[in-house]
């Protein structure tokens, strides 16, 4: 599984990266804005993409439109601090398959990725 992280905050990108350290996924790139993200999607065709909604320039929803046009099979997980549910639902309309609120921790991320990738959760009690 190859992952692209899209977030305008470098701290957030690092947090996601750090939290996925122990998760079985390969991070193939990070993008700080929509244009860069679209470029990377074109070049790398990642399997999984985490996408922020509020970004300078092209926002997350517009970026999602372009990503889905280029690579419809990509599994996109929205990671946002926006509490507005309508925006989240619009993202699902556009083809996003996962959703996570900021701030994120390793456990939430792992669970969300398990659901997104339909991986069987290890039975941990």
């Amino acid at each position: 599984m190859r992952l692209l992280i899209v977030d305008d905050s470098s701290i957030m990108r690092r947090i996601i990266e750090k939290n996925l350290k122990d998760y079985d996924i390969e991070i193939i790139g990070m993008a700080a804005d929509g244009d860069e993200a679209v470029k990377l999607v074109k070049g790398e065709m990642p399997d999984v993409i985490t996408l922020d909604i509020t970004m300078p320039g092209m926002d997350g929803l517009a970026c999602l439109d372009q990503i889905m046009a280029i690579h419809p099979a990509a599994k996109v997980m929205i990671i946002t601090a926006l509490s507005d549910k309508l925006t989240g639902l619009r993202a699902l309309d556009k083809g996003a398959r996962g959703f996570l609120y900021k701030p994120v921790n390793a456990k939430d991320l792992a669970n969300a990725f398990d659901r997104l990738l339909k991986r069987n959760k290890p039975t941990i009690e």
Partner: protein
Amino acid sequence: MKILYDLPIRIKFAVVLIPLIVIIICFDYLQIRHNYLDYNDSERLNITLKLGVEINQAVHELQKERSIAIGYTSSEGIKFLEELKKQRSISDAALNKFYTELGKPETSEVTIRHNDELKLLQSKFESLKGIRGKIDKRSLQSSQILNYYSEINNIALNTVDLLINETRDKEIAQQVHALIYFLKAKEEASIERAIGTQALSSKEMNDELYSAFTSLVAKEQSYIDAFLVIADAESQGSYSREISGHDVEEVDRLRNIIHLRTTFDVEPSYWYDMTTSKINSLKKVEDQISERLLSRTVDLSSSAFRKFWSFVIVDIVIGAMAMWLMSIIVSNLLANVKTLEKFTLRISQGDWSSKVSIPTKDEIGQYAKTFNVMVDEINASHDILRKERDKAKFLYHNIYRVSMLVFKNIHQGIFLLDRNFKMSKLYSKAMEKIFGVNKIAGENFSNFMRPLIIPRDLEALEMFMRHLFNEDMDEDVVNQLNPIEQVKIFNEINGVVTTKYIRVNFTRIWGKNRIVNVMVTVSDETESVLLQKHLEEAEKQKKQETEQVLSILKIDPSVIRGFLYNSKKTLKSISERYESDKESDLKMLLDFTFQTIHSLKANAVVIGLEIMSEKFHSIEETIEKLKAKEVTGKDFLTVLYEIDDADKMIDDMNSMLRKVADVYRKYPSGGSVASNIMLVDSLERSVKVLSDKMDKPVDFFFKNEENLVLSGEQVEQCKDIMLQLIRNSIKHGIEDREVRLKQGKLLRGNINVELEHPKKNTLQIVYKDDGKGLDVSEIKDKAVKKGLITDYEAKKMTDKKAVNLIFENGFSTSDKVDEHAGRGQGMSLVKSLIEELKAKFKMDYEAGKYFKLVISLPFKDDAGKIEENEAIDS
């Protein structure tokens, strides 16, 4: 037709059978009648035939008599006299036989029917006597005799013809006709005999006689021919058997001689004998035919009789049998129908226990069998239904009823959504309570929510529900975006709009591999949300109290005390002003209140008592709002209320302050030393803070600290007094750096507090600064400005008196209300605090040099006795 269809079955049978029976009876009647007529016919024919036979016999004898009489007459009475007599008695015997037959009782019917003919015949027979007499007298010619006899014979033969010619049997009728032809032929033969006898007797034959003779022979022959054509084989056999032989051939030879009319040398008696022989043969044939006819009629009548009776018997037997069979079939059929009818009636009344028993194997039997099978099946179905019903009852009592009870009583709203977002018919009763509506079942959920939530949430809800039913979407992911997870709804009940906080959760319900429904649970969280708000408020309150405590701990208690004392006084002054100035300009009053509160707020800010500054700020805001509009007296109530609230807060803080002081007193943790240290420390800190703020470097010295023998409370109050004095000194007394340098003073100001050695339960505290002292004219100016004294008074007032003005309430040397010296605060507070401690004070100063205040403070000794001292009025 409809009437026929509606008839009961037995009437239908009757309708069909009765005409049939009537037809059969009629037909049989005709048959029987026909046979009866046949029988009657044959009987009568038999009687008439017997009668005819007698008549024929008589005719036969009369024919002989005729021929003999003609011979007698022709021979002029010489010949045939004996024969004639003999013949006459034979004829009479034959006639008698006929009469005997006629007199028989069974013949009476025939005599009645043929009365006329028989009467005629009898009269002719009776005329015979007269004819015979004339013959004896020889008064008649041969031809006359012939005619008489022939007439009798003709009538006799006609009578026979009439008598026997009325049978309905064709065969017999034909043979009767054959007999009649034969009789006629025989009559002709008899006349031929007579004419031949006459011709041979007279040895001559005129033309007339000849033609008569010839036509006779021809007639005779044609009758025989006719007889032979219609006679049956037996009669023909009799004829050819009897009419042959010598005598017949002789008659033919003699007939030819007569025909030739040349010689008549033939004995007439020979002719007569020959012809008589032939006629006798004919008579034999005739008798045989009559015999056969008679026996046939007897046969016919007996067969008709037999047939009649056999018909009657057969009819009766057949009729009886038909009736019997019919009655069996019909009664069996009807009985079966009746049984079926009873059975179906029983079933219709709900009795399923018994079966119908019809042993016949006809359709009804089959129906009965089918019925029984049906009943069995229905019973089986009943059993199944009963079991199902029991099951349903069980389910109802154990599951459905429980669920219904749960649905009725649960406090959560529960219902199902289908894929069209329609709400299920079944929903928990709480739904109606939560939403205040009854129209729930079958409603579209987004329509249902439309009036309750904001449009943006509604749009999100519609989108959300779509994703909820999308099998490709993860349920947890979708549920993270539930827009009405916790939502405020507005609903109107009886015109009153209420606000509720509800929580709505969605759970997918899967069919085989698609989501069939979504279960929705709604909980009313209004109470808990409100509770949460209350908690938050309580939290705030608590925070406020904590802040109060913290403020008190943080800030110098004396500063707070001074502030509180002053604030309370000021607030009271506002209330008093309201009381007294009721009629004055409300606008002005409001401005005054605002100014006052504003300065109080500033004071609070200065000492860092945020909780009070916030409170004053909120009063300010209230007043600000009132300022914007026309003010009424009522409006002041809110202000007063708020002021009262602030006053309470001040009281709270005072008590809090006291509590804190108590804590210190009760747990001195080092006794007075600790409180002394605290006193000194707080005074030092105050000086530092104030000097920093005013940008006036000041040194503070606290001397003879060990002499501090006061109680905690007294220490606190002392501290307040000191703090006020320090504040005044730094604000008003100690000059700016530049002024001090000009006057040759040290740049750094100096404040000294010195404790004298306590004596007689009195502690003397000496406060001194190296500031500018008191400026009498400035004080006077201020006092005039503040309205404490008039201009005139000021001019007249001594310096000593003038300086005491600084202790007046409402005197403040500062124009500006700032953080260091508030309105009406300052020396008046010092004075009142000193008075509270029942202490005395003495003020001293030198303009431009120093300000000094000596306080003599009584204190409790170890025995706790307070030295009562007179307060000095300075």
